[in-house]
């Protein structure tokens, strides 16, 4: 593009005002990537748990450790956030909740729902 030298570039992300819907959207992407990285762990735990009594015991013992529970709380949060934001996107695909005020409300609902689940699972697990 010929105008590139003259156009101002402003990419300081820390000084942007991001609407809540934008935060939700990038949260959906980030949680998705994090969860995808966990797929090997998931399959490994499945395989381990099916390796006889010892394997099963090893997996249950793993979840007795506090650090595992703390990480699990964050992962549950990631899963719930990703899932709820996903449902919101599905509804948007069906053209439900597109009006801007509604979209903002549902975005906040997802964020708050995620935090509620985070706190609940923290209480239950830790």
């Amino acid at each position, binding site marked *: 593009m010929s105008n590139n030298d003259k156009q101002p570039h402003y990419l300081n992300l820390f000084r942007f005002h991001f609407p809540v819907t934008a935060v939700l959207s990038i949260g959906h992407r980030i949680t998705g990537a994090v969860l995808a990285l966990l797929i090997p762990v998931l*399959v490994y735990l499945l395989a381990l748990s*099916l390796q*006889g009594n010892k394997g099963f015991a090893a997996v249950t013992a793993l979840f007795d450790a506090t650090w595992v529970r703390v990480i699990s709380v964050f992962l549950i949060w990631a899963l719930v956030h990703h899932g709820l934001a996903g449902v919101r996107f599905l509804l948007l695909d069906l053209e439900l909740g597109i009006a801007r005020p509604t979209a903002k409300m549902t975005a906040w609902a997802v964020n708050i729902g995620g935090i509620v689940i985070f706190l609940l699972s923290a209480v239950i697990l830790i």
Partner: protein
Amino acid sequence: MNHAIYGLRSWLLQRLTAVYLFIYILYFLSNLLFDPWSDYQQWRGWLAHPAVNIATLLFFAALLLHAWVGLRDIVIDYIQPLAVRFVALVLIGTALLAMGGWAFLTLMAVLA
């Protein structure tokens, strides 16, 4: 298939797999919360039911397809140089296929 329609196929696949994953996770969680498996025999027995076994196989198939569409979107958005993009997609695709094979063998072994 008409080239232009590939986007639609991925879009649809991502939504359909999402719905299945959601339902399976709720089913799994309800088992975990209301009727947890207390030992290896119970756990293995649950997965040995053909219906549960196949549903779980489908879960992993759906998970890998869903992850593929999502991760490919991320690569396409943030990696422009074609060579790097190609390598990234090949690595991710291979890793996901390997996970699928591993999950498949694990679940098949339960039925044996």
